[in-house]
């Protein structure tokens, strides 16, 4: 019997999942997750070009754009004007925002509060968050960031990708590849 991945049946931005008390002991759970991701990558098409192209950084009316903040985090930098000492501190703040509210915004002020004129983050914004999570998860055994990345990609996977810009589709495919590589590393540790 084929088991379907239980977090793929609805729009997870509109109806967030809390992931509590998950029934995931059976090996078929991971197989189902991997099958769901593979089917999405196939639908998204091939991924030419260099990996992780930076999306176009939008200029917000006020504050700093989410994409700029995430781009700087990937360079292990704190965006100019933000009240934080390290890129990790900034990323941890966004991890908490996403884990609690399951949504981000287009721009943030120096205290990392959304600006008054900010709107819901774009797909490109969420993808830039995903690449920042992946970059931190790849720096060592940091499953905290991979856990949030898996939730983010669940939510992005639940969207209608046919309406996305081509660059977003390709970047999502690349992000899913990096997610799979990260999970494979943990599998090699945990499933000897």
């Amino acid at each position: 019997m084929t088991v379907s991945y239980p977090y793929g049946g609805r729009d997870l931005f509109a109806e967030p999942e809390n992931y509590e008390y998950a029934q995931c002991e059976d090996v078929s759970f991971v197989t189902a997750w991997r099958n769901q991701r593979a089917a999405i990558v196939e639908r998204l098409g091939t991924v030419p070009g260099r990996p992780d192209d930076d999306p176009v950084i939008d200029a917000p009316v006020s504050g700093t754009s989410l994409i700029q903040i995430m781009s700087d985090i990937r360079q292990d930098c704190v965006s100019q004007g933000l009240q934080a000492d390290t890129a990790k501190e900034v990323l941890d703040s966004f991890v908490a925002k996403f884990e609690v509210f399951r949504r981000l915004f287009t721009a943030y002020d120096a205290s990392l509060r959304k600006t008054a004129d900010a709107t819901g983050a774009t797909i490109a914004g969420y993808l830039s968050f995903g690449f920042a999570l992946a970059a931190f998860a790849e720096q060592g055994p940091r499953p905290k960031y991979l856990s949030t990345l898996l939730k983010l990609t669940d939510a992005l996977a639940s969207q209608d990708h046919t309406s996305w810009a081509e660059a977003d589709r390709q970047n999502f495919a690349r992000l899913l590849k990096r997610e799979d590589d990260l999970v494979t590393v943990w599998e090699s540790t945990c499933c000897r």
Partner: protein
Amino acid sequence: MPLDRTLSGLGLLLAPTMRSRAYAQMLASRGLSPDHVFHYPAPEAVWTGERTVRVPLDEDGRFFDFAPYETAAETVENAGWDHSTLPDTDINHESVRKILAESGLSVLVYSGMNKAIVSKETLECSPKLLHVHGGYLPDYRAATGFYFGLLETGRVGVSAIWLDQGFDTGDLVGRAWYPGGHGLNVDAIVDPVARADLLANELESWLENGTFPAVPQTGVAENYFVIHPVLKHLALRRAAQTI
């Protein structure tokens, strides 16, 4: 039959959870008798698995035979401990606060309802609350921190702390790592029994020394959120490989 050792001035606050069952059974098995036990007025879940589960406590063969079907109330009754039922499931309810404030206890072992947050007002008027957190502190803070520890180490970390207003930030009484359980149910069996064993160890130290430690948490602290099920699966696979 273990010697009866009364924990003068110490009480237990037990919600209808597997953790409370483990606490009551562990203390009873070691002859540790609290001055008083408070129960929450809430229904117990029915355990449909094995009646007794042997849980490894270290790599040297120490174990605990846990009876998950036996409610904490049944264990307390069988042990003959003084007990009563609180008027509300909310520890911050005025009626509960009043009872705790007038209990005469100096320390209350806290095994509360899931997701309950103890308010500043309750902390100020109740006995000192001793809580055993699932996760090795300060490395693994928040509710499923222990799953991340399990994923990274194959072991279950637990920490006894004095509750304060922060999330898992209170001063440490003690902490320890336990075996992953070799495929046992981590949520219902391994984690509750690990917490119960650390609790009993700390209470025995207190009886011996007359004081509880209170060591501020130092080092790198990490806050964790609910673990994604793919990583939870891998954590359980890793735990299944360790005794």
